[in-house]
């Protein structure tokens, strides 16, 4: 009986300490960048924001997702021809940034992600850009609209 009680106490303490550890322990900062415009200057500035953000936090301590829908998908169209933009995308991907493309937009605008967009594979496609931004926020991602 006493043994059982001791074991129970130990189990409770373990659970509590685990909870504290996750609460105070170092967790990655989670951020979603929302892009739905296609102005080249604005897009360049937005990717600059992402880069600065990662530099400030450290790429091992941050989890960044860039969600593009509507005109925002043009970012990866531009990256096909604009080498400066392309370099920015490549650099951010190396830092662990995920670029996610809205499937609704691809369908509505008849865009082929294989032919028209820079370096997009099937895993980068999300069913709905807006729903994905909402979904990520529910998972604890902080919303930034640059």
């Amino acid at each position, binding site marked *: 009986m006493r043994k059982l009680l001791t074991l129970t106490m130990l189990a409770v303490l373990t659970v509590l300490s685990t909870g504290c550890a996750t609460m105070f322990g170092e967790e990655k900062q989670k951020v979603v960048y*929302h892009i*739905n415009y296609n102005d080249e200057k604005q897009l360049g500035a937005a990717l600059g924001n992402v880069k600065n953000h990662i530099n400030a936090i450290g790429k091992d301590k941050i989890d960044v997702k860039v969600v593009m829908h509507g005109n925002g998908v043009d970012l990866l169209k531009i990256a096909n021809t604009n080498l400066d933009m392309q370099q920015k995308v490549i650099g951010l991907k190396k830092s662990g940034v995920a670029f996610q493309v809205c499937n609704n937009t691809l369908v*509505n605008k008849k865009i082929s992600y294989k032919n028209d967009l820079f370096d997009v594979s099937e895993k980068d496609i999300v*069913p709905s850009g*807006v*729903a994905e931004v*909402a*979904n990520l*926020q529910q998972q604890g991602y902080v919303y930034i609209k640059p």
Partner: protein
Amino acid sequence: MNQEKHFSDEFLNAFVDNQIAAEEKSRAYVEIGQDEALNRQVCELRKLHDLVQLAYREPPAPPARAASGTNSRQARLRFGVAASVLLTLGIFLGSQIRMPATAPSVTAVPVPAAATQQMAKAVPPAKPARTKPAAAADATDHVATLQPTAVVPAAEPAAVPAPVIARNEIPDNTATKVLIHLARDDIDQLSQALDDIESTLKHYRETRQNARVEVVVNGKGLELVRTDTSAFAGRIQRLQREYDNLTFAACQNTIERLAREQGIIVRLLPGVITIDSGMAEIMRRQNQGWTYLQV
């Protein structure tokens, strides 16, 4: 008879009751066997002992029942204690869980009297939920009849709390709540925004997700829901008809500013509700667990 003196009555009783050591007992057996009188005495005692045993064989039941009674009383007491501990724990946990749920609704209460009054006009207090503004409601109901100079005191105090209460009583079991913020008047952007809104609603419907979408318009975005400026009146009405989980909410501050600065009396499209302030709504909703997007 002398022999008798070797054994006291106490000893004999103990002998009959089988409460003496085996060594003494064997000695007693020998002596009792030799003495007839002693033998008879022991025999009498044994008979008495047996009778007593027999007499008590039935009655001992009540004491036994009494004992089991105390046992069950103890068990009941233990059960009661356990139950009350559980109940207390339950109440405590329940209040803990309820706390965050009630807290945000409190933040939604302070609404400026002027705006609340306007809300009372735009949203009939009888309507329980904000989610389904009657599309058929007369457009004149939504006319912002504002006197820019009037500070609007609480002329109808009874009507003031009504919309606020209605707001807080919305049954909020929706898993996904999305606030979409529109603050631009660019036709292309608004068109794209409506595309986004529609495809999002469609996505939630197709994936059978219980979602609510609130479109907050302020600043230049208000033009989307004004009868005199909206390029998408038909589309907005169609969306409202198709999706009862969609709400368009117009910023009262913007409506008042237009009246004050440009003398524009804003008429909203049917079914569009007003909120005190677009920015306040955005912050309030985020505090209530809504996700926020600017399109």
